[in-house]
């Protein structure tokens, strides 16, 4: 081993401890008590804190660098990566030997579940876990001896997961990851906006590619709104959460919702779209519980109670002053 390589492996005991914390956090099941223990260790001395910052920053750098490998390799990139390619090939061979050929290519036991407008589906897994899929949603799910994983590609789903510490249930939404630690939770994806609401138990929210700076641990009532560039945490009462879950019973529950928001909600479920004609009308707030698939009841209520004008056409219901 060269002198340089010796230098690379030189570390203080604090560095070694910090590295152990960091790898635990990144690669193994991480519970609230682990987070507390880490925070306790960090508070013990500035040396701990600095060593951890340093290793964490370096590890993030490797992520950023590794990400450069991902895009379709252009010639220059390909030339830079011969060793890496060799490693990847070795790793691939190791994988095939370890788990057998068929499961190596995109889990064959992946189930695709799709719901149309206004449709709901419940998927029950062998372990008793349940996933309820709301309107206009797409979910891929795989559950086998290696673990349980779901991808919410579109729409909204409620997860009621039977906890198994050996096989945490992981939900991927784009590059975001939610790891259940014994949980009921709601995940909704609208274009680039992701919302996660925790109903029971606890869960961890992060991004395997490091794009979320530090994992967020969710407790019951926590609601995360992730807009890609900013993650905002709010809290909701159990009553508010129950309202958000009204769709499981085919209901939409509005409290101080603007007509614009209410229309957008109805439009998730129905082919006949509610259109609010002007901005002033769109700002009117309403409350109430409606059947998600019954636009006409909503339209009638708006007409009778708010004195607004309603025009029902073939594929839209226009509300105006």
């Amino acid at each position, binding site marked *: 081993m060269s002198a340089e390589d010796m230098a690379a492996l030189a570390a203080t005991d604090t560095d070694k401890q910090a590295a152990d914390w960091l790898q635990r956090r990144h690669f*193994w099941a991480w519970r609230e008590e682990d987070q507390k223990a880490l925070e306790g260790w960090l508070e013990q001395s500035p040396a701990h804190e600095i060593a951890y910052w340093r290793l964490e920053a370096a590890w993030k750098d490797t992520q950023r*660098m590794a990400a450069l490998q991902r895009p379709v390799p252009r010639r220059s990139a390909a030339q830079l990566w011969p060793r890496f390619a060799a490693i990847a090939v070795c790793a691939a061979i190791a994988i095939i030997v370890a788990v057998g050929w068929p499961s190596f290519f995109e889990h064959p036991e992946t189930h695709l579940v799709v719901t149309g407008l206004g449709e709901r589906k419940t998927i029950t897994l062998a372990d008793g876990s349940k996933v309820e899929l709301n309107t206009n949603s797409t979910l891929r799910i795989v559950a086998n001896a290696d673990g349980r994983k779901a991808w919410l590609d579109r729409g909204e789903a409620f997860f009621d997961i039977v906890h198994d510490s050996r096989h945490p249930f992981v939900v991927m939404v784009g590059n975001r990851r939610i790891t259940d630690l014994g949980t009921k939770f709601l995940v909704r994806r609208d274009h680039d906006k992701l919302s996660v609401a925790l109903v029971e138990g606890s869960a961890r929210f992060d991004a395997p590619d490091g794009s979320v700076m530090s994992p967020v641990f969710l407790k019951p009532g926590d609601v995360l709104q992730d807009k890609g560039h900013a993650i905002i945490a709010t809290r909701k009462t159990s009553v508010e959460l129950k309202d958000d879950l009204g769709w499981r019973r085919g209901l939409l529950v509005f409290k101080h919702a603007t007509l614009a928001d209410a229309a957008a909600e109805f439009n998730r479920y129905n082919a006949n779209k509610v259109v609010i004609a002007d901005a002033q009308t769109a700002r009117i707030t309403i409350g109430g519980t409606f059947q998600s698939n019954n636009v006409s009841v909503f339209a009638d209520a708006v007409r009778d109670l708010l004195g607004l004008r309603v025009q029902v056409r073939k594929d839209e219901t226009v509300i105006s002053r």
Partner: protein
Amino acid sequence: MAETPDNSRESAERRDFDVVEASSALKTWFVREVLPLEAVLMQYLQHSCRDHAEAADLRQEVYIRVYEASKKQIPHPARPFVFTVARNLLINRVRRERIVAIESVVDLDALDVAIDEPGPERATIARDELRRLQLAIDRLPPRCREAVVLGRIEGLSGQEIAQRMGISEPTVSKHLATGMYALANILYGEKSEKKK
């Protein structure tokens, strides 16, 4: 119903808002301004060290002092401040340990000139990061490298790495931890333009 702006509720909601991704100014500064100086700092420290372990200890000591001093006010620019701290630390050490040869003090002064110049290291890092990472990973001990590649590049969990490599989970942890501190040493502690 009608148009009733409900202010009480709005303000209650705002109170509950909380930006999750807030990190301390000190940490941000440290990661952005101090860590990139590590290559030059290590070169500086190694002049008066018997071995690499000692240099790592000194580096930690410098960082702690920089951290303590910066808690009240973050010094700008970082570079002269960090090297003043390092220099004082070395001088005290020379005074304390009589064994240290007098040359190290001379070296200290000779090195001061280089310290004030902005280093090329950050630009270089940006220019060929990919190559640097490749070289850095190549230099890890073989099993450690395998674990890091599976974990970092292929995105496997610790459990999955253990299965693929056919080794125990504690061993995977050990390899990953070693990989993490070794990569930090290579990426921060060494001059990137170094010829092999």
